[in-house]
């Protein structure tokens, strides 16, 4: 059985075209977002003298294959390590693993920052609310973008370089560029855990009080052993 499986795998590898194990169409970042991100990194590199890059590695056991989405201030697809003249580099590394539907293991993601600059670490990303698990959700592109785009700020805060100046839009956005619909109530977003938990306690507490006063709690507790026997 094992030999048959091995032969099957070998045959699949031989029949597959070169490079087919990598999902060429996979990218964490949509092309336009990736271009915008590399422009941010390029601008930071010019101001700070620090080279920035990212490397997202996808291990997709669902569809098979390992692929990488890399970029830097030199452009989309250009690893930061390949840039000449970079004495200081900062690279965000992320490993994303999608397991097959038959596997008991969960999908997973991990993030680290590869740099020699002291004071720049992933804890600061978490403080900002950027968690590696975000790379597994529907907003994975935005999470990936944010983690990388935050790097120049973290470097400046570490005292290793000046801040990148804020730049206004060179020209007004077109009429097509509009903010999406209102994201919902700020009050509900902040208060809902307390409202839900408190509401459950109030309802449960009053319910228990009423049931106990009417003797229904005793009836239920006395009935329980009989129903098991």
């Amino acid at each position, binding site marked *: 059985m094992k030999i048959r499986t091995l032969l099957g795998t070998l045959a699949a590898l031989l029949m597959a075209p070169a490079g087919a194990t990598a*999902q060429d169409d996979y990218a964490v970042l*949509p092309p*336009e977002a990736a271009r*915008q991100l590399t422009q*941010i990194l390029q*601008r930071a590199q010019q101001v700070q003298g620090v080279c920035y890059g990212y490397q997202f590695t996808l291990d*997709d056991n*669902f569809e098979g294959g390992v692929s990488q989405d890399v970029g830097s201030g030199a452009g989309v697809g250009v690893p930061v390590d390949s840039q000449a003249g970079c004495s200081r580099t900062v690279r965000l590394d992320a490993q994303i693993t*999608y397991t097959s539907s038959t596997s008991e293991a969960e999908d997973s993601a991990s993030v680290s920052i590869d740099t020699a600059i002291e004071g720049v670490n992933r804890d*600061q990303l978490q*403080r*900002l609310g*950027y968690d590696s698990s975000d790379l*597994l959700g*529907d*907003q994975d*592109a*935005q999470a990936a*973008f*944010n*983690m990388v*785009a*935050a790097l*120049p*700020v973290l470097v400046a*805060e570490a005292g290793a370089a000046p*801040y*990148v100046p*804020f730049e*206004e839009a060179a*020209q*007004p*956005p077109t009429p*097509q*560029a*509009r*903010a*999406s619909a*209102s*994201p*919902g*109530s*700020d*009050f509900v*977003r*902040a*208060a809902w855990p*307390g*409202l839900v*938990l*408190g*509401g459950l*306690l*109030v309802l*449960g*507490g*009053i319910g228990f*009080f*009423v049931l*106990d006063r009417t003797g229904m709690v005793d009836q239920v507790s006395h009935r329980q052993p009989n129903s098991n026997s």
Partner: protein
Amino acid sequence: MKRSWIGLIAAGVGVLVIGCGVAAGSGSPRAWLQDNCRATGPTRDANGNRADSFTCPQTPTRTAAALADAHPPADRQSGGTGHFLRYSSTMVGVLGAQQGSRVLLARERDGYGYFFPYVGGFWGSTSTGGSFRGGGPSGGGK
């Protein structure tokens, strides 16, 4: 003590928890900035978008994290020069400064234009009407 009073005590604790929830939801990012930072007046960008400016003592990351802890944003974004938080009707940009951080608070319409180079496509559509949201492999994951 009668057992039934346990229910009333639980209900009382529930009322307190609701009160804490209401307290957590009260206030606004603007009120938080007025309490923790120094207002430096309104400002306009070259395209006429208006924002109120504040100077805060902490770094951009600490300021943005503290504001987000006090008032959870619906969305957040980073853009090389600082961090951006989106609320129901306002947008906040927390930028680097020589000391501490500089914060810009704008109404949604002004904020989207003011911060467009950093949030455009994520908090709405780009100049071509597209969006950067979503992505990832199709069919993968569980």
